[in-house]
């Protein structure tokens, strides 16, 4: 088998496992769903991070996905999840393409901050849009998939759909990693001068990764809107994007499964902290993050990867 596809068995296994857990522990399936929905933007972030780029503004697309679902179902009566997901994906891809034409020139902290600024601009607009509920946002209900209900008592269906979306997203990015553009990202991170002197466009690779990441984030936001049944500007707030970054770092850049695992783990940890340390859950969460960084230097994906690589030594030139 081609090495490109090695991620498939664990991915499908993981998906089946999550579905099983949700089946046997129904009281956890909402937490799992939230985790998975956050995993999608993280998946995109991890792709960007392979190119050395950290976006502090994936909330922009998370919100875009959520609001697409909300607006289309509220104002245009479109209630079918498949159609909503497709519209979210296409819409955010278009936005990301235009925005990306500017953004793809930026690197490092400047990329991070510009993405942050852009998502905060959307946040500002949403906050001011009282017709859309302002900061309170609004509820989304009655979304179905080809007539099958997804929420309420049938939320297992919603979770299954989400799992399917995650698997497709992960396969998509896994395969992208094997394309020329996908491989180029590592070069962009390491040495852009060399990339240019190989006749390739670093900006182009960044643009493509950015658009893909945006689509993932939008799908996550759309699924979150469907499953939570509520959307609000918080989705575009920097803290939301920041949380994606946190999960992405915990996940590490090693694979397409780790983002989901990290997101779910963090969500479960957070749930426990909320219930058992309501007054100090932030402290607990902070300590756990520190411990994870200390003991898993490569992120969760480092757990399954071969030994650590001394990347730091690369500062030679």
């Amino acid at each position, binding site marked *: 088998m081609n090495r490109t596809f090695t991620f498939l068995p664990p991915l499908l296994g993981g998906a089946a496992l999550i579905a099983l857990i949700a089946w046997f522990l129904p009281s956890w399936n909402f937490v799992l769903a939230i985790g998975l929905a956050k995993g999608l933007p993280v998946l995109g972030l991890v792709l960007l991070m392979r190119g050395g780029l950290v976006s502090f503004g994936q909330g922009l697309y998370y919100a875009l996905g959520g609001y697409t679902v909300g607006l289309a179902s509220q104002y245009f009566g479109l209630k079918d999840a498949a159609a909503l997901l497709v519209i979210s994906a296409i819409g955010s891809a278009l936005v990301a393409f235009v925005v990306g034409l500017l953004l793809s020139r930026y690197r490092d902290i400047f990329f991070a901050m510009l993405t942050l600024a852009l998502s905060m601009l959307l946040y500002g607009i949403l906050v001011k849009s009282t017709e859309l509920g302002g900061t309170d946002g609004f509820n989304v209900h009655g979304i179905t998939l080809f007539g099958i209900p997804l929420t309420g008592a049938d939320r297992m269906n919603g979770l299954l759909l989400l799992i399917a979306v995650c698997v497709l997203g992960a396969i998509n990015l896994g395969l992208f990693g094997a*394309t020329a553009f996908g491989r180029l990202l*590592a*070069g962009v991170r390491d040495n852009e001068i*060399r990339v*240019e002197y190989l*006749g*390739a466009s670093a900006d182009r*690779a960044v643009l493509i990764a950015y658009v893909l990441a945006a689509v993932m984030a939008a799908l996550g936001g759309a699924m979150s809107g469907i499953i939570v049944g509520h959307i609000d500007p918080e989705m575009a707030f920097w803290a939301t994007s920041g949380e994606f970054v946190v999960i992405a770092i915990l996940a590490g850049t090693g694979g397409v499964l780790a983002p989901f695992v990290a997101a779910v783990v963090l969500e479960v940890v957070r749930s426990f902290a909320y219930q058992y340390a309501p007054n100090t859950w932030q402290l607990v969460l902070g300590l756990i993050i520190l411990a994870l960084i200390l003991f898993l230097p490569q992120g969760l994906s480092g757990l399954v990867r071969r030994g650590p690589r001394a990347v730091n030594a690369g500062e030679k030139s």
Partner: protein
Amino acid sequence: MTAPIIAAKGLRKRFGAVVAANDVNVDIMPGTISGLIGTNGAGKTTFINMITGYLQPDEGSILLEGGEIVGLTPRDVTRRGVARSFQIPQLFNSLTAVENLTLAEAALRSRGFAGFAMLPDSALEKSARATLERFGLERFGDSLAGTMPEGIRKLLDIAVAMVARPRVLFLDEPTSGVSSEEKFPIMDRVIAATRADNMSMLFVEHDMEIVRRYSDRVLAFFEGRVLIDDKPDVVMNDTQVRTLIIGEEKAHG
């Protein structure tokens, strides 16, 4: 008479008070190998930087097979068949040597929509290892570029540059940092590869032995000017070159 593949005319470049190129005129003929020598700071790297689009000359023109390339980006220049290595190697430090070469191949194939096609892992790796072997680097296939010794990085830098199969190749001090007993075998390999593909090549070098042995002609730079541009023997015996660059005359009084 054949036309030069690269014709640089009247190049000027200054950085504040420093004149790094002062009316530089150089023709590079197809299929030839030129050596470029000069004191430190003479403008050798600047010359390569201007040709490959990293720096824009203040004045002058550079024709690649008759077409103007001043104003093009490094990427565009590279796509037109010019490649280079660097005085300080430019590698993908967190990747292995094999990965560096496959990435170079990926870069080559990322032009246009072809970039979305999936690349065959094993085939790429095989050709990367073959390239390494050609440069005698097979031992380093799986070590990270960032952790390799300087000399190996130099070589890998050249190998990476040659993945694109350019028609003109510029090497900035290819053998500095390489042990002396290995300099010649390495140059042999590089020269063989260039000749095989009928490339033109220009290399900057401080080691006069190498220059004498491998160049068809030699250019000597001094303070942004071309001191002399001639056959190796002529250049090496030129008094100015001997005093200013090789530093022999002084010894002989």
